[in-house]
């Protein structure tokens, strides 16, 4: 069995009194896409930054592509691509210039640079905008350029930090297709996100983080079956009705979660009698996320 692309063991990171990452274990098998799911402040971004050695762990061990961090992070960084959450493109440069700069920073040989830039332009579907300044691009184009920049050197491992945050649904789906294609090609991917659907669609396995810890790990379907069952009963009504439904569920030993307008009763597939009136639906990863993190999905 090949070494995992990323392997974190008991990793801890503190910022003063705050424990941002608290004994995290995480594994990204070679060629797989792993989703790092968690609410804001769960420690996802800190974890991502530890993988490029911009944040140094206080305890635990981190191996990336077989290289121990932070000592050998530079070797690891040469073989990985990073797509940051914050847009940090050079805005006064053109699309092509941005890619050329990173072809140099990733040390591509002179003969490799031209084809690599062309390929990245095609990935980003920006070939006809190669001469446009970044300032002139739409939000979706800029995000595609960020991804292409992280891929210009054809990395073995790609770190995606909230890759589709703030994008409209159509652009998001385009990027999902791109990420899926990369995974099919064998690129290992670690993707942090707080979009449940994104993790559910793209990730072979998901690690749910809360307060710096991994609270659950596994394929999305397995996590759903394990924590939320197959079916969920969604009970709607005024606040008093929802409270009553929660009490009834607690008496029957059923786990619940609140949404803004309803109470969801988990794992009701085996129960038919003595349940409040509501709408049955298939359990999903969002149910698991809210159950385990106590956070509503935004």
């Amino acid at each position, binding site marked *: 069995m090949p070494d995992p692309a990323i392997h974190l063991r008991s990793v801890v990171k503190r*910022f003063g009194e705050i424990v941002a990452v608290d004994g995290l274990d995480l594994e990204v098998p070679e060629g797989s896409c792993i989703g790092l799911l968690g609410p804001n402040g769960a420690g996802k971004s800190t974890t991502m930054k530890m993988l*490029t*050695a*911009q*944040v*140094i762990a206080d305890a635990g061990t981190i191996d990336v592509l077989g290289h121990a961090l932070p000592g050998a992070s*530079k*070797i690891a*960084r*040469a073989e990985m*691509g*990073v797509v*940051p959450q*914050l847009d*940090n*493109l*050079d*805005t*006064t*440069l053109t699309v092509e*210039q941005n890619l*050329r*700069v*990173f072809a*140099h*920073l*990733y*040390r*591509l*040989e002179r003969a*490799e640079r031209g*084809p*690599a830039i062309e*390929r990245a332009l*095609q*990935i*980003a*579907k920006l070939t006809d905008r190669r001469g446009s300044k970044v300032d002139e691009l739409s939000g979706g184009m800029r995000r595609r350029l960020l991804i292409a*920049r*992280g891929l210009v*050197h*054809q990395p*073995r491992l790609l*770190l995606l930090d909230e890759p589709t945050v703030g994008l409209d649904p159509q652009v998001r789906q*385009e990027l999902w*297709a*791109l990420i*899926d*294609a*990369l995974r*099919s*090609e064998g690129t290992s991917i670690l993707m942090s996100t707080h979009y449940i659907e994104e993790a559910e669609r793209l990730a072979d396995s998901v690690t749910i983080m809360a307060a710096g810890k991994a609270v659950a790990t596994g394929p999305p379907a397995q996590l759903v079956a394990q924590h939320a069952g197959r079916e969920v009963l969604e009970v709607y009504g005024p606040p008093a009705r929802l409270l009553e439904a929660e009490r009834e569920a607690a008496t029957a030993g059923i786990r619940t979660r609140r949404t803004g307008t309803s109470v969801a009763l988990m794992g009701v597939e085996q129960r038919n009698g003595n349940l409040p009136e509501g709408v049955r639906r298939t359990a999903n990863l969002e149910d698991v996320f809210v159950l385990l993190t106590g956070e509503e999905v935004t």
Partner: protein
Amino acid sequence: MGRAADVIATGLPRPRGRGRIGRLEASAIRGVLVREITNFGSYWRATSFSSTVEPAIYLLAFGFGFGSLVSQVAGYDYVDFVGTGVVATAVLFASVFPAMFGTFVKYSFQHTYDAILAAPVDTEEIVTGEALWMSIRAGTYGCVPLLVAMAFGLEPRIDMLVVPAIAFVSGFGWACFGIMIAGLLNSIDNFNYVTSTVITPTFLTAGTFFPLSGLPQWVQVLGNLNPLHHTVELVRHAAFGWEGWADVAHLGALVLFGVVLWRLAIRALERKLIT
């Protein structure tokens, strides 16, 4: 998106040799320089304008303003005296301000260093590459006052060809000083303290506009601790005649200034970028 997926599936073989990975690598510094030079293409006009016009104004104002009152200083025509001295001012302005503000903006607002550090580049190479680029610019812009002074009568001398090199060495130290300040301070407003307490006194007491020899002994001693004073001395001696070991000492002081500030700038920026 099918087209993009096809490109990936039929992609080129992964790029091969990226060379040895170690500390302070030429390929990483080259990458930083390429980024700086490419970006410079979009703002060179404004930078070149301020870096040439500003010292030229100093030269004209002091050279002809004071020059009408004082014809000779330290045995030289005052215009020649100021024209050679203002080279150091041009070097200072072309290196320390871009370093302070540029580094801070890239760190705080543009998040440029996050992008660069995700590539196989370390803080040490970022500082080195950026300081080298600013010192190349300082070496170039530093010559402008000399050319203006020549237009007003300064006699050209073959030894003046080393002035860009002197400006480069001095500019490297001042660029590193600026990077260090950007690494140490948390607010761009705090740069005013540095400008008022360090930069302005530095260029006013470098011997640019008046010789230090007429000042009290303790000021002359302090002057020897001012790297800009050593820049002024070296440029003047390139223009009017070398002074042997004294110039070796001036050059040594500038090299020492550059090396010490280079390491301090790396340390300061590393503390900011790596947590």
